[in-house]
Each structure stands twice: as structure tokens, then as C-alpha cells.
């Protein structure tokens, strides 16, 4: 297969785009596309300070690399979770995050959960009994809490995470299976800042997971390859495998699934009935039951009317 740009031997083939590129052109193409998506979804401007959540994995290190190559002011945040799992998982991921920061002369903030709160993630999970034997729930909750806290405390304008399209499609798939309307309505490349919450953006949301792997390999970025020891058998990985089977038979299926969802959400056509209900119903000022009438509900109006008629 030949590179579409130069005709040399291609290294990366993106079937969903019918595009094959050599290593050099792929390393140009991916940051260009990232910049396009940053602008398209209005994630941030070159004048804003970005905090990149860095786990030591391919997506977050790839994202940090791309943002700095594009000239953005992006610092990193590594959260020490205290996960060992027999493979020194946290230790290794911390080492690789530090190595990347040192090699590229970037600033990395490190927060160790155990030092900060007296308990590692597995200890917190065990003591709170959350997560049904796995610390993933406690881990996700703690990461979101700490990422938000650090971003706000240190005055960053935006928090960037390395979620890729496979992450987003798996999340969308899970929420669609359970018709979690509230989560579906909030999913997207940008979660705007609200009272107490920093703006969150996902600049890699349109790249497949294999594209990010290819980027790190082509750039020579050393990332933690071993999966978190607690991730085995997780629902998100199961959904990703299912979606990859679909993608294998129908190239572009994952991308279409996600993009059509974003279009539907933006158009306001998702779960429109709920909005209609909210718009037209309010509580009756007398009995509290929902009504579309301006003040009293039809029943209370009827009773009032009946009682106001003098007895004959």
C-alpha cells in the first residue's frame, strides 16, 4: 500500500477514511487533524493554559506530545493511584510520564492519592466497598475529583484528557444500551465549565485507538503497554471488542456511530419529549401535581369552582 501524499510505502492505513500514509506524512497529518478538531469544537485557544491528564499511557502521552508540537501551553498532571497488581503498574506509569516530561522539558504536576488522602485507590475501594470487588469505580471518581481540583487550584483554563474515539464509542454504546438519557445528553468533545467544574475537552475524540498507538510508535514515545491489572474483564473493554468486530466488517462504523450521535445531540432531536414535558408542565399551586394550566390544575380549578358556587 502506498502513501497517498508521496507514493512511498505506507505505514498506517485508516480504512474509515480510505487513507494510507507513510510514517512522515502520518506524523504531520495527525496533529493537523487534532488542530482542526480543537477549532471545530471550540475546545481552547492558543492563549489558554491547558492541563493534560497524563496516565503514562499512549493516548495521554500522545495528546501531550501533539499539543506541545502544535505550540499550545500544555502542562501535565499525573495522579499516583497506588496500583501495583504484581507489575508495579503505578510505579511504571509514573516513571514513563516523568521520562516524557524530562525528555521534552515539560512541567508535570504529580499528585499521589495516598500521600494526599492517606489511602491508595485499592485501599479506598476496599474500605468503601464500592465497585463490587474492583477499584475502577473509586479510581474513576477519584481521578475526576482530583483532576478538577488541581485544574482549578492551579488556575488552568481547561483540562484535556486523552479519550479517543474508541473510548467515546464504547461509552456511547454502553449508555445507549441502558438508554441513560442524562449521560447521553452530556457526552461530547467539550464539557463546558460550570460552577465548581473546570472545562473538560477531548482533543483525540475522533481518532481510533489504533491510530494513537501508531502515532506513539512512529514518534518513538515510550508508554505503559501493560493494561491496568484491574481493567481485565471490564465492560468498556468488552464494548470496544464488540465495536471492533463491527468495524472489521464495516469500516467506519465506529466513527459514524459517534459522529451521527453528535449531530443528533446538536440538532436537539435527542429525547425531545422530555423537554416538551419539562416545558409545558409545572406544579399546581394548590395540590402540587403536574399541570399544563398556568396556576391551578384542572381538578383543583373544578373543586374551587364548585365550592365558590353558593348553595341553593
Amino acid at each position, binding site marked *: *500500500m502506498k502513501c497517498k501524499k508521496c507514493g512511498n510505502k505506507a*505505514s*498506517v*492505513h485508516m480504512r474509515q477514511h480510505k487513507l*494510507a500514509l507513510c*510514517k512522515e506524512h502520518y506524523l504531520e497529518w495527525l496533529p493537523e487533524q487534532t488542530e482542526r478538531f480543537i477549532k471545530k469544537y471550540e475546545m481552547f485557544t492558543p492563549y489558554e493554559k491547558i492541563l493534560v491528564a497524563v496516565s503514562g*499511557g*499512549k*493516548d495521554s502521552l500522545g495528546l501531550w506530545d501533539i499539543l506541545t508540537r502544535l505550540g499550545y501551553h500544555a502542562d501535565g498532571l499525573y495522579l499516583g493511584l497506588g496500583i501495583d497488581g504484581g507489575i508495579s503498574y503505578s510505579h511504571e506509569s509514573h516513571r514513563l510520564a516523568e521520562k516524557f516530561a524530562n525528555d521534552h522539558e515539560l512541567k508535570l504536576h504529580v499528585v499521589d492519592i495516598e500521600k494526599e488522602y492517606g489511602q491508595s485507590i485499592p485501599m479506598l475501594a476496599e474500605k468503601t466497598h*464500592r*465497585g463490587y470487588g474492583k477499584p*475502577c*469505580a473509586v*479510581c*474513576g*471518581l477519584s*481521578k*475526576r*475529583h482530583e483532576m*478538577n*481540583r488541581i485544574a*482549578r487550584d492551579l488556575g488552568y483554563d481547561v483540562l484535556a*484528557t486523552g*479519550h479517543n474515539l*474508541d*473510548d467515546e464509542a464504547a*461509552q456511547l454504546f*454502553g*449508555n445507549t444500551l*441502558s438508554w*441513560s438519557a442524562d*449521560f447521553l445528553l*452530556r*457526552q461530547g468533545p467539550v464539557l463546558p465549565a460550570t*460552577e*465548581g*467544574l473546570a472545562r473538560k475537552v477531548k482533543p483525540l475524540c475522533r481518532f481510533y*485507538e*489504533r491510530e*494513537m*498507538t*501508531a502515532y506513539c*510508535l*512512529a514518534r518513538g514515545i515510550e508508554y505503559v*503497554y501493560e*493494561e*491496568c491489572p*484491574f*481493567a*481485565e474483564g*471490564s*465492560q*468498556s*473493554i468488552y464494548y*470496544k*471488542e464488540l465495536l*471492533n*468486530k463491527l*468495524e*472489521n466488517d464495516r469500516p467506519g462504523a465506529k466513527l459514524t456511530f459517534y459522529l451521527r450521535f453528535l449531530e443528533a445531540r446538536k440538532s436537539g432531536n435527542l429525547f425531545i419529549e422530555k423537554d416538551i414535558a419539562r416545558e409545558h408542565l409545572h406544579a399546581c399551586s394548590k395540590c402540587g401535581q403536574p399541570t399544563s394550566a398556568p396556576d391551578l390544575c384542572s381538578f383543583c380549578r373544578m373543586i374551587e369552582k364548585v365550592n365558590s358556587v353558593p348553595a341553593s
Partner: protein
Amino acid sequence: MTVKLILREQEYEVKPGMTLLDSLKKVNILPESVIATCAGEMILEDEILKDGDVVKLIAVISGGSGIAIRESGTCDECRVTNFEYRRVSHEM
């Protein structure tokens, strides 16, 4: 006379002369789930594998965490928006 495919600790052997795509199908590995490298270079599905080639397959899937949360006010201690925990795990 073989080609070796290596995925994590697992090794597979296929005959030379096949394409990478056919080799992956032969050993039941979903092409979407891996990136293949040979002699340190990424190779694509139409690559014809030669005798003695050692193809390293790099798994691309990662993930596993994430829970569903709801905002439920602001924490008095840390001033950050507080979350209500739910069991389902589809929000990242």
C-alpha cells in the same frame, strides 16, 4: 520455514507467502485490535510475510475505569462540585 507472530506472551506460527491480513485471520486475531511491526517498522495488512519474519503485534485496546456520576452540590471541604455515585460505569 515459518513466520512468527507474537502478541504479548503468545506466539503463533504461519506459513510464509501469506499476507498479514490472512495470517491474522488464520490465528483468529482481529486486525482492528492490533498494530503489526516487523524489524521495528509498522507493516500493513497487504504485506506479504517472508520466511523468518518475526511480526510483533501490539494490542491497541485500553481502558477499564469510569463510573457514572451525578452532580449533587458543592463539597464543603474542597469546594469542588460534589458527585453522587452510581453503579453503572459509562461516563468518563
